[in-house]
């Protein structure tokens, strides 16, 4: 790692936070719209501290955090359970792939957020609507990536396996599955990212608990400090989750 590059990056980070601190102080940015970085960090600490938390957030921050994480987790699980099989089904048969892949592409391009209000009136304000919406958002990228993974398997592997007399089941288990794993894992990471987006957006627009909800209610109450604080926390949490998967991905790809 180049020292110049590292110091460049560090300086960018420093400059960013410097601006965040100085601009609101000088009044260039309205303090009510963009609170000073230092004040935001203090509020973050207050929220994360279980003792002071309830004075800011009535039901305590961690309850909301767990709800959000729970919704993301369930949505992710369902996405995997449904997305992977469908991905293999569509990707595994060239005819089906040819017919349906473009359709899935189009669905993926469509702004699925538009459907959220419908999901809310069907499933209500509770976690179900967030889970279903998060699942829906993460499903199609996973399917597309799985299809691409299957398509990307080098034909020579299949040829060689056939030459050694592989039955179809052996072919699937010993060649196709392992060969498609790297690509599929990146699809899984994408799915998780979209699950997260869906759940948080759902909470922001129509919910009574969760990280998104705290952010929205703080915003409406013009409590910019809490708003920014929870946004910072949420960004960090989601970043950590996604990095964890990337890390696992890199471990697996060492081969």
């Amino acid at each position, binding site marked *: 790692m180049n020292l110049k590059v590292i110091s460049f990056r560090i300086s960018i980070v420093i400059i960013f936070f410097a601006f965040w601190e100085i601009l609101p102080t000088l009044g260039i940015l309205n303090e009510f719209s963009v609170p000073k970085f230092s004040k935001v960090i203090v509020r973050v600490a207050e929220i994360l501290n279980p003792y002071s938390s309830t004075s800011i957030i009535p039901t305590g921050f961690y309850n909301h955090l767990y709800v959000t994480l729970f919704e993301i987790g369930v949505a992710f699980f369902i996405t995997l359970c449904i997305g992977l099989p469908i991905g293999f089904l569509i990707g595994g048969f060239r005819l089906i792939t040819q017919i349906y892949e473009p359709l899935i592409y189009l669905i993926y391009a469509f702004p699925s957020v538009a459907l959220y209000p419908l999901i809310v009136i069907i499933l209500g304000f509770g976690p179900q609507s967030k889970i279903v919406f998060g699942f829906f958002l993460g499903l199609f990228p996973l399917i597309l990536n799985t299809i691409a993974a299957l398509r990307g398997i*080098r034909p*020579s*592997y299949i*040829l*060689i*396996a*056939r*030459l*050694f*007399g*592989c*039955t179809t089941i*052996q072919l699937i288990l*010993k*060649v196709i599955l*392992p*060969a498609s*794993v790297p690509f599929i894992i990146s699809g899984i990471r994408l799915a998780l990212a979209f699950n997260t987006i869906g759940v948080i957006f759902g909470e922001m627009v129509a919910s009574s608990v969760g990280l998104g909800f705290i952010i929205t209610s703080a915003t409406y109450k013009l409590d910019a400090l809490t708003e920014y604080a929870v946004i910072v926390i949420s960004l960090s949490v989601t970043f950590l989750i996604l990095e964890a998967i990337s890390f696992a991905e890199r471990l697996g790809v060492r*081969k």
Partner: protein
Amino acid sequence: MKGIKIEGLTKYYVGGNNTLLKVFENIDLFIDSNSFTTIIGPSGCGKSTLLQIIAGLIKPDAGRIIIDGQEINSPRPDIMSMVFQDAGLFPWRTVLQNVEFPLEIKGVNKAVRRMSAKKYISLVGLSEFESYYPNQLSGGMQQRVNLARALVTQPKILLMDEPFGALDEQTRQKMAMELIHLWQHTGVTILFVTHSLAEAAYLSDRVIVLSNRPATIKDVIDIDLPRPRDIEDPILAKIRKKMWNLLGAA
């Protein structure tokens, strides 16, 4: 009669504009058991196609392949193995696991196949690298693992389609010498396709020279020299010249 009998082999190819191209027509050939036979010919003349038909991967349009009295019309991993220019090792498996693969497919017991795999890996001189992954090996080493994998099923026949094509000159020569070693050790029948006249002369008992499309057998050169051969041997040089002339006039 032990060996590979190729009878009246014909293969067509449908080109653009729906024209019918003859790849080869009525090829008759007999390859002795335990021999080392090389097929050479101009680019695109159908050598690889011929090899793949023998392997049972492609069906001929006429004619048949008979090995030791049995007709071949599908892949026969029990008697044949094939080695390609692209080693095609599975990157998610170690060297050992790659060489075990054919035995795994056959359902051989774990302990037995492990032993067999180790044996052939040591035969190609890569015992230290058993737990390495293919991406950690050089091209030449990957091809050696490929060879070990091909031999682990103890096939009667080894089909090789330009296996050293992607390797540099020095490695090619080393691999050629090692191949002869392996061949003498295992007694397998080798059918070898290559572009390199030097390789053909050095390695084979017999060189089959094909003509341009539609390919016919232009000539068959028998090389009676004992092994190990010397690359510098003037007899080999003469044979190479002969092949060159045959190909030039093809």
